[in-house]
């Protein structure tokens, strides 16, 4: 797993992908910080983090789009599949590499936190809870995006699929509101990444949400492993 992780992580920075993602993420988070905090003279860290959700939703496909689709297109997956490294380690190595890049982006947003701390007050507990929720939500986006991109054969279609998936998740609350069936409404709200993030924005350490996010991430990482494994047994097309 370490071997795959290392290669994947370094490849983000041997191609423009990592720099573009981090550059755009940091630039836009700066804009959000200016509009939410500097322009309004607000020291609300959690408000700032709640707005960053939009960024992870928009930009996480940039991180995941090449993870699996590029391997399929270039057939480099045959190097991995014919090696003694088990498939779960391959998928996990790739996911962790994407997660590491996302973590760098999350860490860089702390420059804004630092500015807030210099000119106002940032409570450690608030910081911890806010960033925990933000990180878990970002990793959840990565997990579902990686799963969706495993259906794609090119980076463009992978990015499109991931973005569409994120959009559906983003609209989950709106969809729930539009369906006048309480059971469906509560089911949709249960899987809404935004509803699950809400307690963290309010400064609450929600173990239910932590468990949900952890399960959500594990579920989609395992689903990706199962999908890739099932593809070897596929009778519907070439591998």
């Amino acid at each position, binding site marked *: 797993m370490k*071997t795959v992780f290392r290669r994947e992580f370094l*490849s983000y920075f041997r191609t423009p992908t990592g720099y573009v993602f981090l550059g755009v993420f940091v630039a836009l988070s700066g804009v959000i910080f200016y509009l939410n905090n500097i322009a309004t003279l607000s020291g609300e860290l959690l408000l700032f983090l709640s707005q960053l959700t939009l960024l992870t939703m928009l930009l996480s496909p940039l991180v995941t789009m090449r993870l699996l689709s590029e391997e399929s297109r270039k057939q480099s997956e045959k190097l991995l599949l*014919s090696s003694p490294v088990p498939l779960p380690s391959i998928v996990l190595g790739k996911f962790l590499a994407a997660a590491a890049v996302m973590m760098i982006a999350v860490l860089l947003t702390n420059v804004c936190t630092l500015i807030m701390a210099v000119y106002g007050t940032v409570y450690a507990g608030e910081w911890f809870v806010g960033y925990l929720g933000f990180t878990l939500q970002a990793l959840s986006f990565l997990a579902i995006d990686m799963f969706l991109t495993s259906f794609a054969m090119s980076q463009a279609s992978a990015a499109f699929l991931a973005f569409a998936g994120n959009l559906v998740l983003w609209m989950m609350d709106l969809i729930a509101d539009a369906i006048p069936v309480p059971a469906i409404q509560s089911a949709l709200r249960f899987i809404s990444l935004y509803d699950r993030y809400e307690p963290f924005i309010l400064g609450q350490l929600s173990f239910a949400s932590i468990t949900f996010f952890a399960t959500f991430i594990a579920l989609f990482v395992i689903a990706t492993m199962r999908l890739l494994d099932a593809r070897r047994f596929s009778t519907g097309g070439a591998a």
Partner: protein
Amino acid sequence: MVEVLNVSKRYGRVEALRGVSLTAHKGRVLGLLGQNGAGKTTLLNIITGCLAPTAGSVKINGSDPLLNPSQAKRTLGYMPEHPPLYDEMTVEEYLRFAAALKQVPRAEIPDHVRGIMRSTGLTEMRLRLLSHLSKGYRQRVGLAQALCGNPDVLVLDEPTVGLDPKQITEIRTLIQSLSTEHTIIFSSHILPEVRQLCDRVVILHKGEVKLDADLSNIGGGSATVHCRIQGEPKKLTPALQHLDDLQSLQALPSSDPGVIAVSLTFGKTAMPEKQVFTLCSALGAPILRMTRHEDDLEQIFLQAIAE
């Protein structure tokens, strides 16, 4: 040793492979021949565990790549038709990555990779990005990654496709040098290449094995030379019959008086043209024409794939 036991693979309604069985032994090169779409790549993907068969099984040194992948794949090197390269890596980085995947101990990786680069002629290119390599060098890197971890079994899918003649010769020489210590399964649709490199040939057609035989049993690498020589038949014919490794001598019709036409079939070890030239030169009999006809693998292939 690689054993393929009654393997079938179905894609929807299409049966890509139908009950394919074959065995490849250590120290021998097995050539997988077939037209495009015959099922060669599907079979190689199944052997290497990249695909699962619909029915049947594969054993690599006794281990099934699906049931015991870690054991089976540790002894396997696979060079797919399109080398599985990461363009953003240098040759050395990529081979180190491949060696790590093959679970070569970390401390041994630098020496191991250096040795492979030496044997595949990549040392000078070691700092080059893979994206900057020519087709020939990309093929070499593909072969080099297959050699990482010193696998007993090498599976090579059309390793010379798209190369220029010089590169083809280099890759063939390399495969030949590897053949003594490895079990090699080698797919191609180039008949002379199979003849040159392989000990055994399996002809696949529409997913079925049409022929599985030692090359020595299907022509044995024999070559036939047709000659027109000026001289006395009574003197020339007995002399020709004493050529080394001559399997048969057949007189051909000749319209010119004082000129004989013969068809000489030689075994694998003979150097027919050289022998005929030396003999005729010693007898003072000018050779008016000499043409070599390679053995009948092409004929056998065409017969095997005939409906």
